């Protein structure tokens, strides 16, 4: 929104979209709690609740189309992300993994759904919250399963390694478990959504700008729009992939915390 108005005001010069375009003004009044991403999160919660309530309300042996759609998402998360990776105790974590997967997926889809077109996770705070929840969950699970001392010992002194190597390995392991894992899992989601949205903005706004130029520029502007549309489909792929990777990594971390040897 901002970049369209700002570059029109400048006249001929094209101002490329930047990270400033992600800071949206509040919808009601002067505060920071009524911005678009917050309403998108609420919308996603409502959509998901309604969809899965309706899909599971009249569960029958011969499923309706809606029930089939809901159940195939659930079965996918349960079997491919839960059972295959966590192991025999997977059923306890399926609700969390399923919520995570569908929540991230729908919020990512908002990036390309017409009229909404803003991926919630391109604001980093939302991604951080999800990363922190995963961080707490997998450490809590590990401590509950092994007891705090054995869990810490397995992290600090990985078994089956010659003693001098611990000088190198222990700092790396501590940094991995405390900083790198929660940070990268949220940053990966954020960076992909951020970069994807920026890319779409560049092609669509650039195409619009070319349309206002000389006749030669007008002729190439359809190519920019066509590429924008192609990239929208590419974004659809990336969005599904990121929801998958976030859930997969959460399952891997939980599975690693539950494993008897690290």
């Amino acid at each position, binding site marked *: 929104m901002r970049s369209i108005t700002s570059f029109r005001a400048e006249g001929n010069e094209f101002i490329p979209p930047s990270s400033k375009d992600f800071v949206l003004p509040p919808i009601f009044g002067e505060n920071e709690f009524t911005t678009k991403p917050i309403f998108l999160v609420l919308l996603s919660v409502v959509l998901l609740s309604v969809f899965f309530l309706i899909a599971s309300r009249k569960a029958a042996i011969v499923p309706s189309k809606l029930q089939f759609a809901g159940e195939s998402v659930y079965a996918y998360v349960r079997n491919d992300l839960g059972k*295959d990776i966590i192991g025999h105790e997977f059923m306890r974590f399926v609700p969390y993994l399923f919520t995570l997967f569908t929540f991230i997926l729908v919020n990512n889809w908002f990036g390309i759904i017409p009229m909404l077109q803003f991926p919630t996770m391109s604001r980093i705070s939302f991604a951080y919250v999800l990363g922190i929840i995963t961080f707490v969950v997998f450490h809590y699970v590990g401590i509950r399963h092994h007891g705090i001392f054995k869990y810490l010992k397995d992290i600090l002194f990985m078994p089956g390694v010659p003693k001098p190597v611990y000088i190198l390995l222990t700092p790396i392991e501590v940094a991995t478990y405390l900083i790198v894992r929660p940070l990268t899992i949220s940053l990966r989601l954020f960076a992909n959504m951020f970069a994807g949205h920026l890319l779409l903005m560049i092609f669509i706004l650039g195409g619009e700008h070319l349309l206002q130029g000389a006749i030669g520029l007008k002729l190439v502007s359809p190519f920019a729009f066509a590429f924008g549309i192609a990239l929208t489909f590419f974004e659809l792929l990336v969005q599904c992939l990121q929801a998958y990777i976030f859930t997969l*990594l959460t399952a*891997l971390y939980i599975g690693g915390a539950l494993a008897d040897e690290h």
Partner: protein
Amino acid sequence: MTEMTGTLNLVGYGLAAIGPGLAVGMIFSAYINGVARQPEARSVLQPIAFLGFAMAEALALFGLVLAFVL
């Protein structure tokens, strides 16, 4: 000549992303090779491949953060 403005951080990030890019490519090429040779090993190889991918991509993400923070 028109004057160029901007930050060299992004050029640095582009250079820094070469390494993780190669790493991710190598990890998935090994994964594809493994699955092509032994399709039933897929479920064993998949988590390993994605864990390796996550670790390699972490380096690129650190570069991204530094490009914006510095």
